[in-house]
């Protein structure tokens, strides 16, 4: 109950930001050359002006920008994200269809990056300045420097094309009609390479932060206290260092939620995944304003939610924080 209240309060606090983002984007996109009707006509391979004017009227593009914005906001206030021009369905429905793939991808990439980054960071910090540290840090730097889409492409070339071990794309085997566990397995198999691709750069970041944070905490007074108590080094790390060192990592999750969504645009288009990122790309190209704003709305909510969860987590980890 208290958590719910907190969540609501947090949401209320972020509303102005959200509003600014949506209105700003709306106005920005008005400056773009062409509108959704142009994109539609392009897809159809042509059309005549009468029909185009008619479509503009239909999509409500024939009135002034101010009126359009006013209408949009009015609808938004009623929690209506509007109608998608590309898909001819309510935006909320379109987004809901695409959300699972993105969420799954983000979550698996995040868990992978977090767990891997943590493990490698701890290892590197404990062997600081010795060869495992050097190796891990170097790998981290290389991961960080790899363009993710390129890694994905090369992954496809090697693992899908040459070796044939992994699928080259898509979310699951279509029409295979798998259900239950078999389907989960199938999805996991399809998401393996995309997850790796998206996670790589974050893994590198987490690794670096974890290493630095471990080294920092290892220098703190209370670690000396713990050692003076006669604790073994392993125990010192487990019981005193780790949790403290995790705090900046947790903060980082919140900070990077937005970046990760951005990264999924590229990854989803490399692997042809039906996710929000690719939808966002398509709606920019197709000038589907409602869908794009809807995605921004949802992803902002997502970022806010992630940050909220991070804060809760932080408060659990750190008793000094009162929520």
């Amino acid at each position: 109950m208290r958590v719910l209240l907190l969540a609501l309060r947090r949401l209320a606090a972020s509303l102005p930001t959200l509003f600014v983002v949506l209105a700003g984007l709306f106005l920005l996109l008005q400056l773009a050359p062409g509108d959704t009707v142009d994109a539609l006509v392009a897809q159809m391979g042509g059309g005549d002006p009468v029909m185009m004017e008619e479509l503009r009227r239909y999509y409500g593009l024939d009135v002034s920008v101010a009126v359009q914005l006013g209408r949009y906001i009015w609808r938004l206030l009623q929690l209506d994200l509007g109608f998608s021009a590309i898909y001819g369905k309510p935006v909320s429905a379109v987004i809901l269809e695409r959300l699972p793939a993105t969420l799954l991808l983000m979550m698996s990439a995040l868990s992978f990056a977090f767990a891997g980054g943590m493990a490698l960071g701890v290892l590197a910090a404990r062997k600081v300045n010795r060869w495992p540290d050097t190796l891990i840090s170097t790998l981290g730097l290389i991961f960080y420097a790899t363009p993710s889409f390129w890694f994905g492409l090369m992954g496809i070339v090697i693992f899908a094309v040459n070796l044939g071990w992994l699928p080259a794309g898509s979310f699951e085997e279509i029409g295979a009609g798998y259900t239950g566990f078999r389907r989960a397995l199938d999805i996991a198999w399809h998401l393996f390479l995309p997850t790796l691709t998206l996670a790589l750069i974050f893994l590198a970041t987490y690794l670096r932060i974890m290493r630095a944070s471990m080294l920092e905490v290892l220098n703190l007074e209370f670690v000396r206290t713990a050692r003076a108590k006669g604790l073994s080094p392993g125990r010192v790390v487990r019981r005193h260092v780790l949790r403290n060192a995790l705090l900046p990592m947790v903060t980082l999750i919140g900070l990077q939620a937005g970046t990760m969504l951005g990264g999924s645009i590229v990854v989803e288009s490399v692997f042809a995944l039906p996710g929000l990122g690719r939808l966002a790309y398509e709606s920019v190209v197709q000038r589907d304003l409602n869908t794009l704003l809807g995605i921004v709305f949802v992803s902002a909510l997502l970022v806010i939610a992630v940050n909220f969860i991070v804060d809760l987590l932080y408060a659990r980890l750190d008793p000094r924080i009162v929520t």
Partner: protein
Amino acid sequence: MSAILTIDSLTVALPPGADRPRALENVSLELHPNEILCVVGESGSGKSMTAGAILGLLPDGVQAIAGKILLEGQDLLTLDDAQMQQIRGARIGMIFQEPMTALNPLRTIGDQIGEMFETHTTLRSSEIRARVLDLLRDVHIPDPEAARRAYPHELSGGQRQRAMIAMALALEPRVLIADEPTTALDVTTQAQILKLIRELQQRKGTAVLFITHDFGVVAEIADRVAVMQKGLLVEEGPAIDVLNDPQHPYTRALIAAVPPLVPPPPQMTGSEIILRIEHVSKTYRKGGLLARHRRVTHAVKDANLVLPRGGTLGIVGESGSGKSTLARCMVRLLDPDQGSIRLGDTDLASLSRKEMRAATRRIQMVYQDPFASLNPRRKAGELVAQGPIIHGETRERALARAKELFALVGLDPDSTERYPHEFSGGQRQRIGLARALALGPEVLVADEPVSALDVSVQAQVLRLLADLRKRLGLSMVFITHDLRVAAQICDRIAVMKDGEVVEEGLTAEVFTAPRHPYTKALLASVPGRDWTPPVSPDAVLALADTREFAPQLL
């Protein structure tokens, strides 16, 4: 009585590039059961290194290269890590200086104390819980059950230090090492902790190696004293002897630098009031829009003070009592919520920002932290010249004046080209002073200007201040938490508690006949109040030789 811990010709090497090659040189010490051995010395003399060497917890790159450390006959330097782990905590307990940082902020007190038993015994958790409660009771923490479940940040500094002591003594080690355990605490709390250590030590017969830089504390608690200087043990003996009849010149100098608690006879000051503070209040507000989340601290409540021209007004009080807040209001670093601050006939509190910028040349401030108060990216001379330049002086003239000021505060005038980090703490404090003086202020507000300095340096800076005051006719507001310092330098004293000025009057009167109970308690807590350091002027001169300061100022 045979020693329980013997340090025999211990030499500890520092890594290349450190300020000296050896942290400890040929140090020999004995610690007997049921005694408190105080190790004193200035910062960097190697006190902490001694403790670290005993526990085998020296920093990376620092190594014991010669000598022995015998604990009940066993040489600790020959033990491997696993064996040392058996000894740490179980046979040697340790208390550190900072109660804020020495406890893991993310785990409860009970958990951290219980860990001692988990590590070294096979007790069951219910037994551990009972033992922890007993320990907390032993160290007189109010409501031990609550304290057990509390996180460190939920306890006060004194309570945390009690918890540390409980933890160190959990397994009743024969030896307890305490590295400046009371330095970070207020005097009243310090007095309680010292009493507690004494009490527990006597009850359990523990041998305590007590590290401190404060001779007052030594006088309060020590059975025997060892004095260290730059890694060498220069003097050792029973407390009474060393304190009252020090042999080594260094010891003599150190002790001479300790200000006596008895104020000197009052100086004559005029009756003209230069600074008058009336009904000043300041409240800090923090936090969100919702009333529940707002945090309000009434840092200063209706303060009234007067500073006579040419006089020094001391403001004393415990941490958080509002001393700094009041000082910042005086120079308008903070805008007081209400009240007036009359400097001559101007009310500083009512000036606009622009007017205040012009008025800054009349009232200047000296800061506590010699490291943080100087911009590390500016040359010393520039730092001093900055003020005049801002107020319209030409650059050359201001820099020339800076050189004069350097000489005035006892710095080499040629050092204006150096950067702050190339000076020692005391020297930096002199730069800060020169910067404040450069504008020729009528009033100087000094917020704990000597608290961060070693006693010997502190003595010099205090002397310098007194000297300048006489020569330049400065009026000064002097903030300190050290009553010994206040006694020596201030004509008038104001005692603050929780934002209020609870007592104000001539120093001699306040010290000899305190009226407010809080003032009484404060005075009663001063460590070693019964001991009057023997003063010998030659000792002070001897100390000066060990420093690089210009001797004409002493």
